[in-house]
């Protein structure tokens, strides 16, 4: 991939994050620098406690860095106030979690519609459900769906806000292999066909193979970064 020809959507500069102080201080991120390009599928690989989720939360404006900056389309979000951060998350970011976090009392469609940007696109909810193959299930309640379906609802919900950047934190973590694979295919489709910029956080090396670029995070630092000239299709990934 010719990175130079791509626009940078997000920059992370010398990002530090620590919790506690003194002897109890835990350093979660220790000087992370990276750039994310428009439309790329970016994978953050790391074991538990490596700091990968913390990095994702910083990028998503869910947590504030101790120092350093996160710049999204030229705007430093680490300096945003609450309202601006909310707007940023609402208009620019889509989150997918390991747990699906759907509201049990709402139908599939209602869960997606909850955060949909219908002003921008009145049909976006149905479009996203179509995209995720959930048109048939839109009147169902989360409890009536399988885990994979619930996760697809969560992806649809994340996309319904017309997000520029999709942040996926262990999206297959709560799913079985097959279902997980389906979710990864959905994400791959979104990236390859709909040119969504996607960041996937995972601890599974095999999943990392589908990324355009992959970084490995260990002890809060990027220990490795490589450009994957031949990303593996989700279909072919086994773990």
């Amino acid at each position, binding site marked *: 991939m010719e990175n130079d020809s791509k626009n940078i959507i997000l920059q992370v500069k010398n990002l530090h994050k620590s919790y506690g102080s003194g002897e109890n201080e835990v350093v979660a991120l220790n000087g992370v620098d990276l750039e994310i390009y428009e439309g790329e599928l970016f994978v953050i690989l790391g074991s538990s406690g490596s700091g990968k989720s913390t990095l994702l*939360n910083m990028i*998503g404006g*869910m*947590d504030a860095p101790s120092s350093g900056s996160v710049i999204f389309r030229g705007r430093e979000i680490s300096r945003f106030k609450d309202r601006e951060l*909310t*707007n*940023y*998350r*609402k*208009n620019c*970011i*889509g*989150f997918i*979690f390991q*747990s*699906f*976090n*759907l*509201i049990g*009392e*709402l*139908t599939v469609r*209602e869960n997606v*519609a*909850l*955060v949909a940007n219908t002003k921008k696109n009145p049909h976006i909810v149905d479009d996203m459900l179509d995209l995720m193959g959930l048109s048939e299930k839109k009147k169902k309640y989360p409890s009536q769906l399988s885990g994979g379906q619930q996760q697809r609802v*969560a992806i649809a*919900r*994340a996309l319904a*806000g017309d997000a520029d950047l999709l942040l996926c934190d262990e999206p297959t973590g*709560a799913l079985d292999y097959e279902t997980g694979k389906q979710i990864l295919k959905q994400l791959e489709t979104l990236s390859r066909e709909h040119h969504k910029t996607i960041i996937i956080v995972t601890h599974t090396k095999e999943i990392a193979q589908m990324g355009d670029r992959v970084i490995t995070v260990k002890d809060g630092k990027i220990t490795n970064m490589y450009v994957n000239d031949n990303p593996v299709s989700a279909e072919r990934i086994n773990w």
Partner: protein
Amino acid sequence: MRKVLMRRYPRDLKANLFRYLSLFLLITFCMFLIISIVDAAERVIRGTERNQAESVLEDGQITTFTPFTEEQIKEIEDAGYIIEPHFNYEYMLENGAVIRMFVNREKIDKVALDNGRLAEASDEIVLEKRFAAENNYRVGGSIQIGEKDYKITGIGSSVDYDAPYRKLSDTIIDSSTFGIGFLTKEGYEELKKTGGGSEELTYAFLLGDHTATEFKEMVKGFDFDYKKVDDPYYQEMLSDTYGKKDEIQDGINDLVDGVKELADGVDELKDGTGELADGMEELYDGSVELYDGSVELYDGTKELKDGTKEFRDGVTELTDGVTKLEDGANSLESGSNALNGGLWSLNNGTANLRDALKELNKNNAQIEGGAEQIFQALLTTTQNEINEQLTAVGMPPISLNAENYSDVLSGLAAQLSAVGMDASGIRDAKDSLEGIEAYANGVKQYTGAVSQITEGAGKLADGSAQAFNGSGSLHDGTVAFRDGITEFKDGTGELTDATKKLDDGAKELSDGTKELSDGSKELSDGVKEAYDGSVELDDGVKELRDGVTELKDGVDDLKEQSDEMLDKLFKESPNNITEFMLKDENNRIGGAAGDLEMNRSVGLLAGVIVMVLFTYVLSVFVIHQIQNESSVIGALYSLGVRKNELVSHYITLPTLVCFLGGLCGGLLGLCKFGSDSQMGDTYCYYSVPWFGMMVPLYLIIYAVAMPPLVSAFVNYIVINKSLSRTALSLLRNEQKASRRNNIKLGKMNFINTYRIRQLLREIRTALTILFGMVISLLVLMMGLDCYVLCESAGRLNSEDVKYQYMYSYKYPTKEPPEGGEPLYVQSLKKEQYGFNLDITVMGIDDDNPYIGVKTVPGKNKIIASDSVAVRYKVGIGDKIIFSDTANDIDYAFTVADIVPYSVGLTVFMDIDDMRDLFGEDDDYYNVVMSDHELEIEEGRLYGVTSKADIDKAADIFLKLMQSMFMMLIGASALIFGLVMYLMIAVMIDRSSFGISLLKIFGFRKGEIRKLYLDGNRLMIIAAAVIAVPIAKWFMDTIFPSFIGNVACAIHLEFPWYLYVIIFAGILATYEVINLFMMAKLNRVNQTEVLKNRE
């Protein structure tokens, strides 16, 4: 987004149906109670206002001795007033009840009929509704009054008897024994002739544009022939009053004479003060001179003092000298004695000596001759020998005699020596001769001396004789001298004493003179001031004289005017007014509305407080829900959902429940069933027409808007914090580390540790139960305070009333009746919470057997009953002001003591001081108490109160309030039970995971109950221990304001068993709920563990 989330509400509602439904019903019930109470109050208050307007409520009433004449009535009406006679008399029925009869009214205080019509025939009557109800009289029925049956044509009420107290001083309405009735004019007159009590000539009036004072003055100005008053007691009073005229005139004449004498006296005084001023001037000059003289005198005495001091020193020295002189005189005497003895011996010696010397002198010539012979012999011999030798050597002989032998012999010796011859013999001879010559000369001298001695001895003897004689005289002299000295010494002693006295005297004289000097100075100054004063006095007396002259003129005028006034006052009629009362002073008017004013304000406030509780309970559910949905909320936040959107979402459902509860409660409360049910107490006590439905706009707004607003506010406050956490925190469902979770519990068994931890985890819920308990206990305490107040009022009134009969006099006799204890009772007013209550000031003697109170002398000293002390929060030493509103006078009293006495609001004074204070005669009284019925003419009395009446009144009040106690106690139990149920249910819901897990671990039901439910029992007990005193204290604090219009003692102390019942009730409620909770606990199954974890 809101629209999407709204779809969740019905599902949420369905899922928690019981919870929301029970709270909805509770809110509905409470709002129903509150709205119905307030609406009932509103109906009565506004209905009373409307009824007063429709029935043309009087502005006041005036009672007269004689009826107004037609001319007077016309004059009144011409002046713009409206007046209507409301004459009345009382008739006692066969059952002992008293009915006060009136004529049908046409203009003022018109009867509001509930049923039937007004009396149109002389045998028809309209009865007051409460009296009719209590005595089972109905329209179409009849009532026997005297010997006649009257057909009851109507039953209704009259605005001037809204609270049908028989006497204005009554504190309780007893419609079973007293009521009013309305007859036609003819019927009234006919009945009057058949008996009954004395007729009260009362007129109701409307003032129009005038003031009450104007009307009163107008009536006072009417001609009134008091002689036409056929009341003998009134006549008796007038004669007493007229007897005063002469006293007043005599007094004024005395005053005139006195002032004349005063004027003369002042003239004399003026002359005197002129002279006094002159005299004072002279006195001043004299005092100045006196001062100068005293200063000089002081200097003189000072010198005198110095002189006497010196003199005293001299006398002291003289005394010393005399003492020494006396010693010397004594020595002299001794010496003269010795001298005398010596001289006597000397005299004897010298005589002997003289005689001896005479003997000695006789041989002197022989001795001299012998010595001469010896010398001559030796000289011759020597010459011879020498010549012999000289001759021998050829030398010429020598001739020796007594004159030359020395020279011859010396020359010879020298010649011999010169020629070398031995001359020693010569020298020896010479020496011998010289020795003999010396001897002869010595003998001569001796004899000469003896001769002289003899002569001297003679003289000595003579002298010694003389000396002896002299020494005798000397001795006598020395004795005399010593005696003289002794006397002198004595004299100097006296002189010393005298000198000391002289010194002291001089000193005192000096001091005295100093004081005299100072005094004369002060005298001088004083005299100067006195002089100035006398001048001023003179001026003042001059002015006084002018003033007295004016006074004299004034008193002369006064005499003229008072003569005129007295002539006018006593010549014309006395005042025709016996009583003048405005509607605001008449406690029969507007009693019901006044009673319910408090219901309205307290009800509205109570509604808000109860809603705060319910909405807080709801907020606990919401918090529970938020905790359950924490990760979803975090996810929504991460997707850009705003906090306010979720806050409004979570607030909406509780707010909706509150809104619906308020709406339903409001509708029920405002419907006929609602407020009618609350008006029962009013209709069972007061005589008011049936007030129609009324739906005040503010009450609709209150019912509809208050619950949701309170809910929104409380929920916002409570959940805002929970929703203010970060998206990450919510996603991770982080529980805020609380200090209470870190409490070290020490070594306890597992069950106790778990229970405590569970309680700490659920502390918010526990506090809500406490809050609910406090609120429900407040409601309970209100009911119990009502009960205790009524019960204690009845019991203590009965205990404190020691008399059997109390007679209130209109015209007291000069002397109290035999067997009666006279008192002086005056009614004053004291305002609190907007109500002007009657304070009974009771003047008593210390030995009053019916009032065990020891008064304190002093016109402003009162002994307050504890009713007054508690009501007005005064203690010993505090000041309290009571008002005589009729005369616009305030009386300030000091509370000298507080005594238990619960009848009304009473204070006690010494009867004599009270008579002084209120300007009554020394023997005045207006109330008599006795332990048996007295024979007192009815016409003299305002009324009689018996102990039996008081006891009965207390029972009526207690019965009347019973339904309210029960309602409040029921509401309290319902609120408490439901709040506790819901909160404990929430605790179990929140602990379902743990309960499920314990079940999986094999804990038995009993063990799980111990862990999750039994701990609550302790919490409930602790909460009760905290909440009961708080609720009791708070209610006791605010309760007096609820009964601000009731002039009664406020004794709110609970007997101990009432507390036991409260605690038992709380525990019983808990135990019942515990049974339900056990069932709920059993319903929690092991799958909860799976459900809560994806």
